[in-house]
């Protein structure tokens, strides 16, 4: 516990001093803003771009605000996840490769505390980024379109946060397992794609698959997801996260010999 707080302080300092606590949320805010702004200006852009017959009148249906927030989540699912992978692929692997980890590993280091400190800080920054990103999306949707129920937004963001935690766990564990950041990113990407693909192809009946969490999150906006499926998916996600934390601590310890001396 004592080592955990010492290492947490180190991780915070790193993330503050390399400006990650600013630029990661900034990208998510940007993603959150883009969707409502583009939707708002789309009719004007299309009309002014010409190519339409003179005098033709086009009716653009105003999209419901819920649809815009769901589209924001789509952005997070692609660009957002890539940003998180890039931001944290080197969190363990980079320290070993540069040799900065050596002076930690030669001490009586608790590897669970070491891994957990990295996971907690990466998770905190990722979650806050996603939250402010949704908040920005919500704000612009409210400004240009209409209100989304606060409760619905809250439930959606909460459900999506579990998914974000799962992804961050995969990234940090991959970083602990792989010899460098690039390979960690490749592995994390591969796992992410395989998860999406298998669930897309065969997962129709797997209602408690955690890969469906983003889907269930979006469902809060329309109606509400099936509570049994949601609980099951969250439970399984929590178990996988727990397993990844144990695996990550173990593989960090196992790989300590690979630090550059």
């Amino acid at each position, binding site marked *: 516990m004592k080592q955990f707080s010492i290492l947490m302080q180190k991780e915070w300092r790193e993330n503050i001093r390399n400006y990650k606590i600013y630029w990661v949320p900034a990208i998510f805010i940007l993603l959150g803003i883009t969707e409502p702004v583009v939707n708002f200006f789309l009719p004007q852009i299309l009309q002014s771009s010409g190519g339409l017959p003179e005098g033709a009148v086009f009716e653009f249906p105003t999209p419901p605000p819920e649809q815009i927030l769901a589209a924001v989540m789509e952005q997070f699912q692609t660009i957002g996840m890539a940003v998180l992978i890039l931001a944290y692929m080197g969190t363990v692997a980079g320290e070993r490769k540069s040799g900065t980890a050596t*002076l930690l590993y030669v001490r009586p280091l608790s590897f669970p505390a070491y891994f957990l400190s990295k996971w907690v800080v990466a998770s905190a920054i990722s979650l806050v980024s996603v939250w402010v990103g949704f908040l920005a999306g919500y704000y612009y949707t409210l400004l240009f379109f209409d209100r989304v129920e606060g409760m619905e937004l809250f439930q959606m963001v909460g459900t999506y946060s579990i998914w974000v935690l799962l992804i961050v766990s995969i990234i940090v564990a991959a970083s602990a397992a792989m010899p460098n950041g690039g390979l960690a990113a490749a592995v994390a990407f591969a796992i992410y794609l395989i998860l999406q693909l298998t669930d897309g192809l065969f997962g129709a009946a797997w209602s408690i698959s955690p890969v469906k969490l983003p889907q269930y999150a979006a469902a809060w906006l329309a109606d509400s997801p099936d509570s049994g499926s949601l609980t099951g998916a969250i439970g399984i996600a929590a178990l996988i996260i727990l397993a990844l934390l144990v695996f990550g601590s173990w593989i960090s310890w196992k790989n300590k010999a690979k630090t550059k001396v």
Partner: protein
Amino acid sequence: MSILEVEKLTKRYGQESAVEDLSFVLEKETATALIGPNGAGKTTSLSMLADLLSPSSGKITVAEGLTIGFLPQYPQFFPWLTALEFTEMAAKLSGIESKKARLQASRTLGFVGLESAMNKKTGTFSGGMKQRLGLAQAIVHQPKLLLLDEPISALDPTGRREIMDLLKALQRDTTILYSTHILNDAEEMTDQLLFMKDGRLIEQGSLNNVKKRHASPHIRIRFANPNQAAEFAGRLTWERELKGAVVFLPVYKNGPSMQQVLEVLSSEKQDILGVDYQTASLEEIFLKVVAAK
């Protein structure tokens, strides 16, 4: 009293063996120099002692409660931490109480000569400063055993002198095991020598014992010309060797003492230019031992 015993320590990578059958003992508060050419297995051995690498076979036995400080050959620091922040963290991770850690860290940085650079980010440090900081993080928790991998090789002569003096100060109450290929320094601070080559220990012992075994020291008497030298050598009963105008008398193997030689010389009528004691340097001994194996 021994604080660390190494028995038949071996590290293999596949078929290649980096360290083979290494055995030695570190006595409390002594300095041991681990000497060998590049690739001899010095770093691998130290990494195993520091518990970074696990041995393929063999045993390391340490005294109970032994605390270790380790300085790698090229220590790397988190560039976004200041020297004080890093050293304080190192102290805390080694078990120093949080309240005392900062004071202990700043004292240690003062000791290694980084007082004025304490609050600078380590990313801006020069090689020499990094080496000093490396030493600071290794000693901040006052470990009983210090493992130093080439602690002075990367330094300029002044820095080398300063670090050597720091190490000698530390040596009074710390056991030190350090690797080096600069043999002058080893001669200066060593109770035990370990020569390594190709992963194996090829010679070990105290500086005196190793010298006795390999250095064949002798007394050298220089004359004005070869004739005088030859004439003098002819009158001697001791074992001797004549080389031009110089007579060599081996000291070991029933050789004469310096006093006996001086007595003989005091009544000598020949022109004697000088008498001195000659012994091989550690470097010569090392080259000899390496060549022999």
